[in-house]
């Protein structure tokens, strides 16, 4: 009836801990090693997901819980992924022209700095 599991069922927490440390190291390596940006993103996020799964499964004992965990976590996951996904077409991308004055200014200033090598330029 109860989910009190007998001791031998217990995972070796130290092993999980070790795995988590290794994952962390992998993420840091991904930053140190020069990787294409896309590859890096996919890599570190997958590593993070693995870590999260480890923590949830063993540290949070989800592996040993019953069906309710799906009822709780499935909708949460869907919503948590769905929200950013639904925001992407509007915020992550732009259907209409964005006005970003600082972007224009920045480009202009950079260009000017490159052209004049830091000498005075008194254009508005």
């Amino acid at each position, binding site marked *: 009836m*109860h989910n009190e599991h007998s001791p031998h069922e217990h995972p070796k927490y130290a092993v999980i801990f070790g795995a988590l440390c290794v994952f962390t190291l992998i993420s840091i390596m*991904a930053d140190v090693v020069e990787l294409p940006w896309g590859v890096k993103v996919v890599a570190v996020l997958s590593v993070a997901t693995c870590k999260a799964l480890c923590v949830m499964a063993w*540290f949070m004992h989800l592996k040993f819980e019953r069906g309710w965990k799906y009822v*709780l976590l499935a909708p949460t996951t869907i*919503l948590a992924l769905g929200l*950013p996904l639904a925001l992407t077409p509007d915020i992550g991308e732009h259907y209409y022209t964005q006005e970003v004055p*600082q972007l224009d200014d920045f480009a202009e200033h950079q260009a000017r700095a490159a052209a004049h090598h830091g000498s005075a330029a008194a254009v508005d």
Partner: protein
Amino acid sequence: MSHSPSQGHAVPPIKMGLAIPNSKLCMWLFLGTEIMFFTAFIGTYIVLRMGSKGWPTDPDVTHIRVAAGGINTFVLILSSYFVVVAHEAMGAHDFGKARKFLQWTFALAFVFLGIKGFEYYGKIDHDILPGHIAENDQQAKAKVLRESETAVANRLERLAAKAVSSKAAEKLPEPKDDATKLKALLAEAASKPDVKEAEDYRGFGEMFKQFDLLKQGILREDLSLHDVETQLAGLKANEQWGYVFKSVHEPHPILYGNIFASCYFLMTGFHALHVIIGMLLFWILLKQASLEGWHDFLENSGLYWHFVDLVWIFLFPLLYIV
């Protein structure tokens, strides 16, 4: 309820619902809401970043240190590990051991906050604060001007207050309103032989002159950012009064810096708040003379703590690496 049912036959011996304690169920439901809470933050960060045609990623600019983040990740994982072993020890009724592990968790949480605080300090030191960041040369120059004006005015104010006798101080004009009057007062004070700090004022005339040069240059818009940078460095380098400009930040425009800093502080800030709440929970536990009977409490605090860890597991790559 102690009362026996009046009905003739036995009560169906069914406990309805899930076979977990209410408190644990509640904690899990609460964690569900917490996931949505952080989803809003993390999702915001992701989409805003996607939607910005640029994002500061250079660690020299953002002062984001992978090493610090990495160590903090490790610290949190370790503290999470201590929570599970504490829970295990509780299950085995080894309360002493459990307490020891919990103390470790608690200490590690402190370490985490310490490192986090150190990182914040680095950002504050470089004025990487949302709303403060110049995003182009124009704003950077304006910021230098603004900050050095305040620095000079503050210094004037302080010196004037020191120099003039307390009675005279009452006559002091509002410092920022009336810099010229202040200067006159200062000159007067400097000429008095009995003022100890008189030497402080030596060379201030020069300072005003040089600062004016910079100011007029910026206002006339005929200094490039590079010029401003050099001049500012020159001002700072002065042996006598360079320190006045110490608080003026180097002009480094960061494109999309404000939104970057907004996201950074929002996410790490709320995460840190959760760390503190978790520490409170552990503190309640550690305060108990005996941990007997606190098994569920520990389990639920542990769940919470692992969740805090989980959030960080995602924040780390998203903020520090990507």
